[in-house]
């Protein structure tokens, strides 16, 4: 370009040769420079562009040379570019030249992408030329957003781990008073056994039941803790209808008072499953109680439906559906994450624990929001098949 700066005509032929050489050099630079490069004049018309720029925007050079550079831009810069140029040329105030900024580029097919733009200026006699250097930020932004995603996953995970820690510490601490409670109650029962009278009999029965409940609480904690620590649970071959019957007996307390009608549709083929009884009951109780809670908030129809289906393969599906207000899709998507809740007083742990339990059982849990309203929670469990039963003997 040196030659352009020295327009003294020594020899016209020599000048033409020099120009040609300069042009060839410029073209070879434009073809090989790894960055996207666009040269425009002071009206914003494209003079030339690099091969990388052609590829990046999806045009070939011949399509764009002479056209306004704003076709590479998206709103609002697209409409404003002419005025940007005018302002710069009249005021000399630099807003992008030598500074660089992240803007949105627009490809031939109309799609947009993030890009970093730096502009250099070239003055020839009284004419201005501008060179834009462009870096495609698509990959970089993808990396960044993936990084953010990972970070939030890790945060969730560490919260979940903290939860596991909390559960196991809590388990140990709670076991002590539970042990004391059970000991006192069992001792009382022994004393009452030696007492006569009808009241002693009633007391003995009540005290004995209370002691059993203390032991049951210990059992729940023990399983939860084993599960958190080892990710394993105590699975047996269990009858699914029996599991559902036991869980609903517990969970449906108060359903009548809330005017909720309950129906069961149990597939006879969905019989034996490989499951930790207490954990699956925990899941069922959780889902059923949620359903009742949601429906008791209002609404005329209050129908709870508990159903099972054997899909013929390795899994059976259990569903708990309600006729409540339903769940917004954006909430539904992250409903099973820890600390996500729709309840005013909820911790947002119930469904996350349900998911952990079901996934550890080799199943899946998800939510359907039928068009007719309400919510259906579904989960799958592994069926215990003939082959498993043959392993028994």
């Amino acid at each position, binding site marked *: 370009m040196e030659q352009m700066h020295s327009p003294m005509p020594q020899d016209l032929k020599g000048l033409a040769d020099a120009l040609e050489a300069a042009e060839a050099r410029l073209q070879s630079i434009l073809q090989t420079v790894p960055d996207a490069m666009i040269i425009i004049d002071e009206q914003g018309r494209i003079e030339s562009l690099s091969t990388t720029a052609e590829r990046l925007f999806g045009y070939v050079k011949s399509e764009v040379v002479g056209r306004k550079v704003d076709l590479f831009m998206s709103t609002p810069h697209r409409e404003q570019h002419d005025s940007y140029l005018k302002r710069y040329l009249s005021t000399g105030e630099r807003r992008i030249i030598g500074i660089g900024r992240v803007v949105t580029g627009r490809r031939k097919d109309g799609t947009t992408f993030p890009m970093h733009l730096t502009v250099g200026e070239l003055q020839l006699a009284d004419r201005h030329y501008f060179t834009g250097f462009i870096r495609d930020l698509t990959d970089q932004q993808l990396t960044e957003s993936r990084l953010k995603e990972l970070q939030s996953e890790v945060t969730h995970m560490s919260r979940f781990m903290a939860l596991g820690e909390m559960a196991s510490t809590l388990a140990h601490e709670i076991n002590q008073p539970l042990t004391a409670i059970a000991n006192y109650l069992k001792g009382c029962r*022994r004393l009452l056994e030696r007492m006569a009278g009808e009241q002693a009999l009633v007391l003995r029965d009540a005290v004995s039941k209370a002691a059993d409940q203390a032991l049951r609480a210990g059992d729940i*904690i023990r399983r939860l803790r084993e599960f958190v620590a080892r990710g394993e649970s105590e*699975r047996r071959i269990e009858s699914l209808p029996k599991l559902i019957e036991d869980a609903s007996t517990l969970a449906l307390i108060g359903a009548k008072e809330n005017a909720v009608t309950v129906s069961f549709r149990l597939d006879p083929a969905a019989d034996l499953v490989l499951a930790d009884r207490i954990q699956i009951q925990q899941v069922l109780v959780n889902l059923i109680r949620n359903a009742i809670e949601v429906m008791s908030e209002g609404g005329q129809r209050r129908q709870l439906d508990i159903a099972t289906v054997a899909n013929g393969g390795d899994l059976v599906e259990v569903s708990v559906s309600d006729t409540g207000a339903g769940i917004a899709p954006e909430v539904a998507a992250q409903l099973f994450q820890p600390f996500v809740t729709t309840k005013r007083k909820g911790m947002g742990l119930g469904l996350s624990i349900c998911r952990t339990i079901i996934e550890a059982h080799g199943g899946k849990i998800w939510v359907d929001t039928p068009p007719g309203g309400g919510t259906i929670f579904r989960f799958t469990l592994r069926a215990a098949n003939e082959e498993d039963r043959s392993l028994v003997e």
Partner: protein
Amino acid sequence: MSSSQIVHVIDDDVAVRQSMAFLLSTAGYAVRVHESAIAFLQALPDSEDGCVVTDIRMPGMDGLELQGHLKSMKVGLPVIVITGHGDIALAVQAMKAGAIDFIEKPFDDDVLLAAIRSALARNLHNVEREARFAEIGRRLQSLSDRERDVLEGLVAGKPNKIIAHDLGISARTVEVYRANVMTKMRADSLSDLVRMAILSGSSP
């Protein structure tokens, strides 16, 4: 039972040791409570009539160390170890060090009382104890070879995946075997299963 037979309860949690004393006294036992293993050793009786019920995880000297001390002092008091949750590995160690039983908190009184009865009657001809062992033996007999392999892995504290790898079968199959073992052994929990296996002497 003989009045000289004393049950020594050692637990650092005051509510636990007092409630245990209450329970055992209602069952007719003479009980002495100690807040630590060291306190117990300091008050160690001359007479060896009785037994020790000790928590395994305690500040200062723990249940395992206490067993070691008793052994080196040639004190022959039978020891029952009580564990909090998740201390199965420790409990197995205690059993191997000579504890006669281990019980998980919170426990059913019948389980504790049966263990104490057999501890106190250790040197006598103990019909109940033998009947119990015979029953566990019968249940063990009902296991298939593969189920026994899985049981051994569980007693060794291995997770399902490792057992599966060792035996060259799928983890899912291990789970099924494990479920069967639990059912056949009539075990309430993994620790119950491990306890039965160790009591019967079938541990590896």
